[in-house]
């Protein structure tokens, strides 16, 4: 193809790039407003503005600003870190245009380009192979298969072949591990197989369990707030003594008081702080909202290759037919080897593994005395290669290859130095071979024979060989994988393995890692099942083998439908859709870009143990978020309910709208360090679930405690301090403000734990410091000019003594309520 034509095609087909999610500042900002809570606040600010209440409007706007700025700052910072992690690596491709081969930026490739690939190259586009020489590719990222796949230019006569069957195709993103080849680009960018997967990921992420919970909670709150605000306004308007405008502004203030306006910011700050802590243990959180689900995940599905295994083929053992150690098998396999030495040893992974094994066992020198004379290269018909070496004027032909192929060329076997006819030992040899194969190992056989010197050797010389032994290869389990799986189980997380690899390999890995396998299922069995059956079997199956990316997706969907919070760990292209669908998609830094793009969390180290740290962190964040929600819905609700009741029977408003709003703002500030609070051990031991029913019952039970003490304060102010006439309204309002604020803020120390506060569960130092500071500020406020501005007045000295006793009794009573709620009612 000519350069000119290529340029024109580039205009038609576009650059050879994959679609990705772009980071947008505006989107981060707009996300802060995507909450029903803001709708209430903005409506309240507008109404207050319309009724010329600038102080009220300013306080509401300050709340909105505080929440938005906090949320935006933290989320923006987190997004920026992730953005910086995305590396723009430019890949070059060797392209022939106008008859000349040159290196071209792979983004400029177009359909029709002729591309040449060598060992180590990443296929830059989807190509039809037109020429190949011993070409093998690593398609693990597509299929999960750890071993190389043979590729040729041969025509295929298949109807509707799957991508795995297309052996004359090179797929974008796969790596050439052996040989070389030339192909014509068929599709580029989003039209490639890889592009199709990427394209499916450029859609809104499915909602996480946490997001669904927050949404339900928001709806519950908005309904409650509207109902209460309308009731207060109606009651005040009908039987109250206040003007309509006062009633409206009061009901609005109560509505605002009910809303935990800082919740979005508290959640974002918690998540962002958690993300920063997780970054220290090399866990990068791409999507903040997934942290909570990360903590609450109770099923972790993982790909086998690269997560449970090293993702690298090693030579596990060298087996000689006699059973004893025979140096020749290893030495001969070092000689009959095509690995290339550079900075590292490169080439066919099995050849590289042989060298790694020899170096590790300091046996690489054993091949030195030999000199390579000739080679009969590997080809896919013979499925073996051979070399002729010489030592001390003796010539030896060494063959190495697929056992069935090598056996066919052997007539004898060397058993502990005794040369016996192969037929005599064939059964034992076959038994051994099948046993090793059943354990999921890849086997190569090694054979040899003495030959006479001649100018060249050929395939015809590969006969009458003597079988020496086997080379046993495996993708070994990771050292810490067993520990990590055990730890996850202890944390209440069930581990399931989803692999495209065969069931034997998967089972061996599980046995090696001592993972108990309840049931093993292969993809073809899964295809025969109805959706109801799939939902049933996913519960009891530990290993899913030979499964396609679509089936991975189905398994995750089924688990989600069964009510689990599902995490999925994978690093290949074939894992991307499942990574996207899972509540928490977990990938690793070395994963293909499309997998990292789809993941919520990226581990900088391929270490499952860091997962446990991340889960722990997620649970802490969830625990602190729930604390805020329980606080907001119980004490806030109680306070606003008593305010509403009092507004009906009092001859004045129990608190001015502006005072309610100010108290709310101060309360929100006191809660800002809640994300740094300590979380009790029992709360991080097991996955927690978002339970709106629990929140409702908690509110119903703990809300009235606050109301009771509000009513008590009314009684004290009205009948002990005589503040029952409109002239003493300020005294009443101040007394209630101080009591309400102190109880509302201090109760966090009781609510934050199921244990006895301070005695067996210590709050975080920053939470203690800020809470005490805010209470101190709230109590001295009536004596300050700001207090005067807000309509407060000085309180009599006896009040403070009574307040101290009331607050203490209230906190003890709430703690006694906890005994009833948690221990007797078993929540």
């Amino acid at each position, binding site marked *: 193809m000519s350069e000119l034509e290529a340029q024109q095609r580039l205009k038609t087909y576009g650059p050879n790039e994959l679609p990705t999610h772009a980071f947008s500042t505006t989107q981060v900002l707009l996300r802060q407003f995507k909450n029903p809570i803001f709708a209430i606040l903005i409506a309240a600010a507008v109404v207050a503005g319309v009724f010329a209440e600038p102080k009220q409007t300013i306080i509401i706007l300050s709340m909105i600003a505080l929440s938005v700025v906090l949320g935006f700052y933290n989320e923006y910072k987190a997004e920026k870190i992730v953005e910086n992690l995305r590396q723009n690596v430019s890949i070059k491709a060797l392209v022939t245009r106008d008859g000349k081969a040159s290196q071209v930026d792979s983004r400029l490739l177009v359909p029709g380009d002729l591309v040449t690939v060598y060992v180590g190259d990443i296929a830059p586009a989807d190509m039809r192979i037109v020429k190949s020489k011993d070409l093998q590719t690593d398609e693990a990222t597509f299929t999960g298969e750890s071993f190389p796949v043979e590729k040729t230019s041969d025509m295929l006569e298949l109807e509707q072949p799957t991508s795995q069957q297309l052996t004359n195709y090179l797929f974008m993103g796969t790596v050439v591990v052996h040989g070389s080849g030339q192909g014509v680009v068929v599709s580029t960018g989003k039209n490639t197989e890889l592009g199709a997967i990427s394209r499916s990921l450029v859609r809104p992420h499915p909602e996480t369990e946490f997001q669904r919970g927050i949404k339900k909670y928001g709806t519950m709150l908005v309904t409650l707030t509207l109902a209460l605000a309308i009731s207060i306004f109606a009651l005040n308007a009908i039987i109250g003594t206040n003007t309509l405008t006062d009633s409206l502004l009061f009901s609005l203030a109560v509505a605002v008081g009910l809303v935990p306006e800082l919740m979005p910011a508290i959640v974002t700050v918690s998540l962002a702080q958690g993300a920063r802590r997780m970054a220290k243990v090399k866990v990068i959180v791409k999507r903040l909202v997934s942290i909570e689900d990360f903590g609450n995940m109770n099923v972790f599905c993982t790909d086998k290759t690269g997560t449970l295994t090293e993702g690298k083929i090693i030579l596990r053992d060298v087996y000689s037919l006699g059973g004893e150690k025979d140096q020749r098998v290893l030495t001969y396999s070092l000689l009959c080897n095509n690995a290339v030495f550079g900075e590292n040893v490169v080439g066919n992974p099995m050849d590289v593994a042989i060298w790694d094994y020899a170096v590790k066992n300091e046996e690489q020198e054993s091949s030195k005395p030999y000199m390579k004379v000739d080679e009969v290269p590997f080809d896919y018909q013979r499925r073996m290669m051979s070399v002729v070496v010489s030592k001390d004027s003796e010539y030896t032909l060494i063959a190495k290859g697929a056992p069935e192929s090598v056996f066919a060329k052997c007539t004898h076997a060397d058993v502990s130095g005794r040369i016996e006819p192969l037929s005599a030992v064939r059964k034992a040899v076959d038994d051994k071979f099948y046993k090793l194969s059943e354990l999921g190992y890849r086997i190569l056989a090694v054979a040899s024979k003495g030959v006479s010197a001649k100018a060249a050797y050929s395939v015809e010389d590969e006969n009458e060989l003597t079988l020496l032994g086997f080379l046993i290869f495996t993708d070994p389990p990771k050292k810490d994988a067993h520990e990590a799986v055990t730890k996850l189980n202890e944390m209440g997380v069930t581990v399931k393995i989803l692999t495209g690899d065969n069931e034997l390999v998967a089972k061996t890995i599980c046995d090696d890692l001592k993972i108990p396998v309840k049931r093993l299922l292969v993809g073809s069995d899964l295809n025969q099942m109805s959706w109801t059956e799939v939902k049933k079997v996913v519960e009891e199956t530990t290993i899913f083998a030979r499964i396609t990316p679509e089936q991975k997706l189905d398994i995750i969907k089924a688990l989600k439908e069964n009510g689990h919070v599902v995490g999925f760990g994978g690093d290949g292209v074939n894992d991307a859709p499942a990574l996207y669908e899972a509540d928490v998609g977990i990938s690793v830094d070395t994963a293909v870009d499309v997998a990292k793009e789809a993941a919520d969390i990226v581990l900088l180290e391929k270490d499952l143990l860091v997962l446990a740290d991340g889960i722990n962190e997620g649970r802490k964040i969830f625990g602190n978020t729930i604390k805020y929600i329980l606080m907001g819905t119980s004490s806030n609700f109680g306070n606003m309910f*008593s305010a509403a*009741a*009092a507004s009906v*029977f009092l001859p004045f408003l129990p608190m001015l709208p502006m005072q309610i709003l100010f108290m709310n703002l101060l309360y929100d500030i006191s809660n800002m360090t809640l994300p740094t609070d300590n979380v009790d051990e029992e709360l991080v031991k097991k996955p927690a679930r978002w339970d709106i029913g629990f929140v409702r*019952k908690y509110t*119903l*039970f703990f809300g*009235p*405690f606050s*109301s*009771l003490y509000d*009513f*008590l304060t*009314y*009684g*004290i102010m*009205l*009948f*002990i301090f005589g503040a*029952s006439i409109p002239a003493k309204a300020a005294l009443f309002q101040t007394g209630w403000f101080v009591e309400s604020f102190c109880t509302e803020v201090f109760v966090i120390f009781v609510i934050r734990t199921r*244990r*006895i506060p301070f*005695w*067996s569960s210590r709050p975080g130092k920053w939470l203690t410091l800020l809470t005490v500071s805010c209470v101190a500020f709230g109590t001295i406020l009536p004596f300050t000019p700001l207090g005067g501005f807000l309509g407060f007045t000085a309180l009599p000295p*006896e009040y403070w*003594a*009574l307040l101290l*006793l*009331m607050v*203490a*009794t209230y906190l*003890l*009573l709430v*703690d*006694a*309520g906890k*005994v*009833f*709620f948690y*221990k*007797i*009612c*078993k*929540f």
Partner: protein
Amino acid sequence: MIDPELFLKWAVSISGGSVFLALVSIYLYSDAKPRRDKMGQMVRRVWSLPRDFIFVWILLGLLFFYIITVEVGSAPIFAAGNVIVETLLILYLLKNRTKTE
């Protein structure tokens, strides 16, 4: 001089709040049965009811005490009563603490 009408409204409000809380407690207690069954615990016997609801008795006692002291309008009685209740609550909490606590 206490306004009787206002006092009555107040007493009704605080009593209403306490009764509501007591009713919620009964609801939560009955709602807990499936969870107790799931945890393999025996159904609590009738005579354990008074003990299980100690917190409610304290609550109702407090309500009675608060209404009386507010009507009397005595800060010292209010303070003394609170101290007694706090002592009772502390004893209750200590008795109910778990091994880890």
